[in-house]
């Protein structure tokens, strides 16, 4: 994601107290990064579509005892100014279909499908996720997202029917309905041996079904949530098991986010550690600090090609700047459009262009940056850069200060991008007693150390059950 705010360097991280001395680091991998994270131009970069690439990354992660392998979702190809965006990796398989194939060639790693609640039918979602969960022996998860723009809706029967303010109401109703479908199968809770009929009639959905999917070994698929608004955070605090966040590069920021999520979880009647936090991040390691820095600079320049640099600036200026020199200065004129709309699946929706432009201009002038240097400078936070030992120290500190439970790593190159982390960082973590040395469970719920699904916690869980079923 391009963050219009210039990145801040980590302050003195050692100042924060260790509150969870024995806590372990958990890792996941996100395939493939959003926007220009994934470098496709390097000779090392393999196919982004061949199953072999997915299999290699998933198996590497499993060798590294990762909790989970994630796939993202985007239901319409990104556009800019009405034309297909052609500079980044584009084109991917359906997540659940791909994860089902991966389930057969892996044994332990969790399989997380990002699936949107606006343009999916609850019965299809619940059934497909449950199918993946059963076939994988309890390793499935659903990363709930709410992308609701009408532009994406043009690929679906209902079109853009949902008001942005209500995206999480629909998410809540869809998730609650899915949980009821997953709870319908007979077990200790339903000893009469029949399958419960599910009738859910909310104002944003209408479902009446006799479910057909048996219960999985982990009860329900694990629920992740990704979405950073206040509504998104509340939704996660009420209904999710894990948050896939954007707050994991600057410790103070991560701590603030964690405190906010804990407070929201407690307000929702849950134990404060009930929602795990997994920020997305990237890791670059080298033999020496200088080598790691050099490599990080190289990665950034591969990610931000000259064309990408002009595109990113052109997005804020809302015009085609491809004639500009990427190694030259920003355009002398100000953006013509004051606020950006949400077309094209852009991450800059609502950006106030004059403010961003003024900030960028000041930064470029202060540091003498070209367009390309500037885009590299403002392209989000760069994650963890250093020797394997220094990176491991920082990862452990993030976890043991209670700011996160683990990290969801986006490799910058596919399919070899995880090798360094598994071969060099994981052993450092293990040496510090901060990482598992073997899988101890078989399900994703066990890997993550989660409690039972929210609707299945016995008598004491009445509140949680109600919260999780809110809205239907």
């Amino acid at each position, binding site marked *: 994601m391009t963050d219009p705010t210039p990145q801040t360097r980590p302050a003195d991280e050692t100042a924060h107290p260790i509150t969870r001395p024995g806590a372990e680091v958990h890792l996941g991998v996100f395939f493939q990064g959003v926007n220009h994270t994934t470098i496709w*131009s390097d000779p090392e970069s393999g196919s*982004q*579509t*061949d199953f072999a690439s997915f299999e290699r990354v998933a198996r590497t992660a499993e060798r590294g005892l990762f909790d989970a392998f994630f796939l993202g979702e*985007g*239901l*319409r*190809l990104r556009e800019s100014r*009405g*034309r*297909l965006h*052609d*500079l980044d*990796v*584009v*084109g*991917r*398989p*359906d997540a*659940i*279909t*791909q994860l*089902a*194939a991966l*389930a*057969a*060639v892996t044994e332990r790693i969790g399989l997380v499908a990002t699936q949107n609640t606006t*343009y*999916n*039918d609850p*019965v*299809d979602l619940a*059934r497909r996720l449950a*199918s*993946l969960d*059963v*076939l*994988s*022996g309890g390793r499935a998860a659903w990363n709930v997202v709410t992308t609701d723009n009408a532009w994406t809706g*043009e*690929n*679906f*029967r209902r*079109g853009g029917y949902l008001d942005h303010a209500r995206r999480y109401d629909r998410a809540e109703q869809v998730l609650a309905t899915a949980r009821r479908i997953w709870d319908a*199968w007979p077990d200790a809770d339903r000893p009469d*041996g*029949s*399958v*419960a*009929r599910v009738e859910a009639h909310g104002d944003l959905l*209408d*479902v009446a*079904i*006799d479910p*057909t*999917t*048996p219960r999985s070994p982990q009860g329900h698929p694990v629920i992740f949530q990704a979405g950073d608004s206040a509504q998104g955070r509340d939704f996660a605090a009420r209904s999710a098991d894990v948050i896939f966040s954007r707050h994991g590069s600057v410790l103070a920021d991560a701590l603030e986010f964690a405190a906010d999520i804990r407070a929201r979880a407690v307000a929702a009647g849950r134990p404060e550690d009930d929602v795990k936090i997994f920020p997305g991040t990237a890791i670059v390691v080298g033999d020496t600090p200088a080598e790691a820095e050099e490599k990080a600079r190289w990665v950034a320049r591969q990610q931000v*090609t*000259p*064309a990408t640099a002009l595109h990113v600036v052109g997005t804020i200026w809302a015009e085609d700047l491809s004639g500009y020199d990427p190694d030259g200065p920003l355009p002398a004129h100000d953006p013509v459009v004051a606020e950006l709309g949400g077309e094209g699946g852009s991450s800059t929706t609502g950006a106030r262009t004059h403010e961003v432009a003024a900030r960028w201009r000041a930064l470029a002038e202060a540091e003498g940056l070209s367009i390309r240097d500037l885009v590299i400078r403002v392209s989000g936070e760069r994650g963890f850069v250093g020797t394997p030992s220094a990176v491991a120290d920082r990862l452990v500190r993030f976890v043991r200060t209670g700011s996160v439970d683990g990290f969801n790593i986006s490799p910058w190159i596919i399919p070899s991008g995880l090798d360094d982390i598994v071969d060099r960082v994981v052993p450092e973590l293990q040496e510090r007693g901060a990482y598992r040395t073997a899988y101890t469970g078989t399900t994703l719920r066990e890997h993550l150390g989660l409690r039972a699904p929210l609707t299945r916690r016995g008598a004491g869980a009445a509140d949680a059950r109600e919260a999780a079923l809110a809205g239907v």
Partner: protein
Amino acid sequence: MSGARLARTVRHAENAGLTFVTFADAVVPAVPGSPASARLDAVTRAAFVARTTTAVGLVPEVPTTYPEPFHVATQLASLDLTASGRAGWLASVTPGDAAPAAYGRAPVADLDREARDVVQVVRDLWDSWEDDAVVRDVATGRYVDRDRIHRVDFVGASFSVVGPLITPRPPQGQPVVLARSGDVAGPGRDGERLVDVVLVGGTDVAAARAAARAVVAADPGARAVVEVQVVLDAAGRTGADRLAELDAAGPWAPGTALRHVGDPAGLLALLAELADDPAVAGVRLLAASLDTDLPVLAREVLPALRADRRTAAPRSGATLRDHLGLTRPADRFAGAARATA
């Protein structure tokens, strides 16, 4: 219902030399409220065995009525990618009120039109990326050539889809589309063939052969496959006894398909009679129980068919289209004047 069991069954089917396996599906159960109606999603099951097999075609049933066509196209393209060109789609139709209630929609009134629209837009979407759309042009920084990725701008009776698909064109270009005779009545836009393989029935061999001939007469490029229900003498019991037991729990597999109940030799004779008609491209064997019938088919039926050159085991590396003698279609958008996408 476990993954291991599913993988074993499909591996046995592949080893037996079957050309393709179908994964039946329905979102609403045959017997509501009964755990005996347990069933996992067909595309997910097919995908699970995509990498545990190398040659056999994988054909999930996905209804044209109610699921989102855009998702259907994405899922089947993904299956074809994962299975290296071995995917098919059994496009079915869902009448009744139970499915629309599950989806919270009014029942579709014109099932024929809906089926035609859905198969058409799925085919359009599969072609929305030309085969060579990914150019990875380092000099200009372009990963794809946007002129080779096209909107479909489909407008049907009950929905519209702009496209393009989020998934590149699958290995077969178009995964093989199968449908029961009459379920998806083509042709599509500009006379396009919507169904590659038509499944036909018939109360006797003559009727089945006639049905197959009708398919080929209407469209010489289509393939006719005869459905044959099979209850074999197996596991120390006669087929007739096994069928009686199945029928006791409600009539087994009602319908107009051909049926063979009895010994493998009788089935071989029936299949030979069918195969003697050039209009019959193949048979879809609907076994009463895979656990019971598949071992007999593998041991006593398929080897004899292969010996007579009436079938050949699928080759790994070949596509389902290859095995069915269907050519890989050109992309409908290739070279088209620049679309907006």
